[in-house]
């Protein structure tokens, strides 16, 4: 899980990083959660912030994100959760660019999946392993 710089280091600090972990562990199961190193307030920015995504400096932005991609791969995790929109866009691109091809998901997607209320058309960012799991109203697939 990416600790968003904006709400963790720049706003509420480690306590909200703990809240985030409480939610994520409740959703995916404690045994399935793997922290990146370093993390919480000490986490590295993914490179999606500060307007970088719109600056036109794509090569530099991807180079910036190499550290993040390495960090994610080192966990061996199947998925990366990005609660922040800019992080989601950037890490999703890093996953494809550096060939890790790990799915990058919004937190709301996994919350609804765990509650059994995630419909067939709300699964854009899930990997193939979860696309067909616990589909809510599968008959409404578009």
């Amino acid at each position, binding site marked *: 899980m990416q600790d968003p710089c904006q709400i963790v280091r720049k706003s509420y600090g480690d306590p909200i990083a703990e809240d985030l972990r409480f939610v994520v562990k409740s959703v995916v199961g404690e045994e399935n959660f793997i922290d990146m190193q370093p993390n919480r307030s000490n986490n590295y920015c993914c490179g999606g912030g*500060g307007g970088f995504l719109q600056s036109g400096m794509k090569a530099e932005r991807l180079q910036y994100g190499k550290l993040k991609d390495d960090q994610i791969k080192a966990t061996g995790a199947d998925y990366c959760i990005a609660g922040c929109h800019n992080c989601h866009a950037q890490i999703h691109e890093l996953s494809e660019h550096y060939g890790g091809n790990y799915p990058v998901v919004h937190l709301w997607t996994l919350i609804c999946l765990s509650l059994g209320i995630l419909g067939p058309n709300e699964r854009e960012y899930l990997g193939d392993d979860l696309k067909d799991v616990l589909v809510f109203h599968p008959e409404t697939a578009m």
Partner: protein
Amino acid sequence: MAEEAIKLGGKKKSFFIDKVKELLPEGGNLNLCLTCGACSSGCPATGLGGMDPRKFLRMAALGMDEEIIASDWPWMCTMCQRCIYVCPMKIDIPQLIFNARGLRPREERPKGILASCDMQLRNDSTSAMGATPEDFQFVVEDVLEEYQEAQPEFADMQAPIDKQGAEFFLNQNSREPVTEPDELVPLWKVLHLAGVDWTYGSKGWGGENYCMFLADNDSWEQVTRTTVDSANELGCKIFLNTE
């Protein structure tokens, strides 16, 4: 009668770093660098364009203002503040970066950020993708209706716009309503099940703020005021920034 004080020749040149120091509490500690390099060793932007945070601060301290203006590095730093977090002197390098962005004429700043800022100023949505308040309302109502029918367990789910007195004011990244509206729904479901009293604002619903990234302070203020005024006019108690 005392003679007039003797004035020494030569004007003291005003440097960029001095101007930034005047803006910041404690001068941003910009004079306190121990050159330890903790900032640079943990900065993902180190090495890009041959630059790093320590080097950039040294350039400013040495009055190398022309080189700072010419450098693209302020646009490769995301101002994530990890450098402050690890700095023993808590030096505010990100504020130095932010103000360095503002040194260039507005039209010479990165085109993508500039265009996104201009788009946010076009109407009251404050959306960087240019969607109007009417577009937003149409999409939200259309998607909500579709899901209320397709998933009857959520027939009572709401996605209010301009609901007076709602507890939470929620903003939304433009990407969902404009390019992937189905992604709006999981968040609505979570709020519905949690019994949250919330609303979007037809004004200021766009969560992004590219004018801030552009270091265009007046436009940044205009975008922020639009959304804050919207929340206040609706009497919302808490502003929820999803961006």
